[in-house]
């Protein structure tokens, strides 16, 4: 007999798959598949950005740490929030004006080198698969526990759902289903978390009960871990640089129908990401007072969903956790597939394909990625955990200095880019292994290996470019890129009245999210922060 919670959960999954399949009808040309023919408005951009940003890390791994360590740690070190804003308003906007379809499009063109494009794409595919597989494994275990279906069957079920989202519907399906999934995630933060706080005794549980049991729950270093300021600072930097170049965040700028929609989507999703996660973490923290023995701790949000709210909301909330995993995974897989078909076969391989062949190639690549990832998730090789641990940091050290230099510095060249990507990655992996795995030495102030690796990657980018010559083509592309203003195309396309309307709407949304944000965080600070000071 299926319970109401399971019924709502499976019903939601069926809706996602159905919507994803229906949207496959809109795919005629590769532009539809890769960037939704650049037709997405503010709500879709906000929905897909928010849903892709929320992941198994937030809803399970980090929620588990918050449960035992208190909310302050992750509210302080979550550098991925500013990373989201910079990724969209700086990197995404700059790449979008060049009509890029994928990030390696820009990287190869900027450095006028197919070798640079290949290295960047390989790093991207390996990093994406590592990060994606771990999400799928997390989802498999979560749901195996929840619905009592064997882990292997859950993974295959998810693979089929992902196949529909990515192979059939491409970016159209991913953007629309992401937005639907975003609604389920809001339920998790806005309904289940407050319900947990009230079930635990109201705001007082956060301001009095828990701090009396352990004063450390409101220390950024954590209630039990006592992490050093150096570690906290390096985590903030890691998340900032990782998310600001993460392909599944930055590429959300590409389907936007214009610059105004991109800015609106960024502001709305920034409010959702900060608001929903803050309330969720406070709810998770309060749950410790309700039940301090949840095992494994990663399942704390599932426990909240099944124990503190009506089964209807509980089912939607678990669907929200699943959505966090599915949306991130589908987006990660779609970019790994794009990397294979568009970046490696078409651009590096120099294959001239018809539109029909490009579309077929993109779909075959998606199929291959889903199959490979499913097989890895089913067999769970030990190495995949290392890859997942490195994935975020590798993006930060290999891509961030190279992309920022490419956007800002005319002298930046392919030799610097190659040295930075390869040297930065090697430096991180070696430092990580030496300090965390082999215990050879420890870094001062408890800093994470990502900080020195980022520094090495930046020095290699600058040093490599200064020590070698920058080609005429590289300089020409840089000058051409800076001659184009993103606003020009938008201004040309619309009448003055339309522009004025869009301009005012964007201003109102920006002020609106600021106003609602002030009310939310001001209210939380008065209710929770002030009594603690």
């Amino acid at each position, binding site marked *: 007999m299926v319970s109401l919670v399971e019924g709502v959960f499976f019903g939601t999954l069926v809706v996602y798959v159905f919507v994803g399949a229906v949207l496959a009808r809109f795919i005629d040309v590769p532009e539809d598949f890769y960037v939704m023919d650049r037709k997405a408005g503010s709500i879709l951009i906000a929905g897909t950005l928010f849903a892709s940003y929320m992941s198994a890390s937030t809803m399970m791994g980090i929620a588990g740490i918050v449960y035992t360590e208190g909310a302050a740690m992750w509210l302080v070190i979550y550098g991925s929030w500013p990373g989201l*804003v910079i990724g969209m308003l700086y990197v995404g906007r700059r790449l979008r004006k060049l009509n890029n379809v994928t990030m390696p499009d820009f990287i190869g063109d900027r450095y006028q080198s197919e070798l640079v494009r290949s290295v960047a794409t390989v790093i991207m595919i390996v990093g994406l698969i590592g990060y994606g597989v771990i999400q799928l494994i997390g989802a498999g275990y979560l749901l195996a526990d929840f619905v009592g279906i064997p882990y292997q069957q859950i993974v295959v079920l998810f693979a089929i759902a992902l196949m529909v989202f990515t192979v059939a519907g491409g970016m159209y399906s991913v953007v629309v289903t992401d937005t639907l999934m975003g609604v389920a995630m809001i339920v998790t933060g806005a309904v289940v978390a407050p319900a947990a706080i009230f079930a635990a005794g109201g705001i007082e549980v956060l301001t009095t009960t828990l701090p009396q049991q352990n004063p450390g729950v409101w220390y950024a270093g954590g209630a039990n871990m006592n992490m050093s300021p150096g570690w906290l600072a390096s985590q903030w930097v890691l998340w900032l640089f990782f998310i600001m170049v993460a392909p599944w965040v930055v590429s959300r700028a590409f389907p936007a129908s214009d610059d105004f929609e991109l800015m609106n989507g960024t502001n709305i999703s*920034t409010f959702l990401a900060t608001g929903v996660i*803050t309330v969720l973490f406070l709810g998770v923290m309060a749950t410790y007072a309700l039940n301090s023995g949840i095992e494994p701790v990663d399942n704390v949000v599932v426990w909240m969903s099944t124990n503190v709210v009506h089964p209807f909301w509980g089912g939607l909330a678990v669907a929200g956790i699943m959505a966090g995993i599915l949306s991130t995974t589908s987006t990660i897989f779609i970019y790994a597939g794009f990397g294979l078909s568009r970046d490696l076969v078409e651009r590096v391989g120099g294959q001239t394909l018809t539109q029909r062949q490009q579309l077929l190639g993109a779909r075959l690549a998606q199929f291959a990625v889903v199959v490979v990832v499913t097989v890895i998730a089913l067999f769970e090789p030990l190495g995949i955990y290392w890859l997942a641990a490195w994935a975020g940091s590798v993006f930060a050290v290999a891509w961030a200095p190279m992309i920022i230099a490419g956007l800002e510095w005319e002298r930046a060249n392919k030799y610097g880019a190659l040295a930075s990507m390869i040297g930065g990655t090697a430096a991180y992996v070696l430092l990580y292994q030496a300090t965390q795995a082999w215990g050879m030495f420890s870094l001062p102030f408890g800093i994470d290996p990502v900080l020195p690796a980022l520094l090495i990657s930046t020095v290699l980018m600058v040093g490599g470019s200064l020590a070698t010559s920058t080609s005429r083509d590289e300089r020409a592309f840089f000058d051409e890129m800076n001659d184009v203003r993103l*606003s020009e195309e938008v201004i040309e396309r619309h009448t003055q009245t339309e*522009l004025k309307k869009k*301009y005012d709407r964007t201003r109102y949304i920006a002020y609106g*999210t600021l106003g609602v944000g002030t009310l939310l*965080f001001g209210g939380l*600070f008065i209710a929770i922060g002030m009594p603690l000071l």
Partner: protein
Amino acid sequence: MGDVSVILAFAHPFAVIVFSTLWTLHILKNDYKQAIEEKQVVQERASDDVAHAQGE
């Protein structure tokens, strides 16, 4: 450290919303405000020219 952590816990996410808003307003002012005003002047001139030509 607890006091600072408590303040930062709420100030950090709020600061990100302020950051996003200010950046958007900066883009609007920098890239669009003047261009929209100029486009208005061009459109007014064009309609004046049409009216003038029809008058003749």
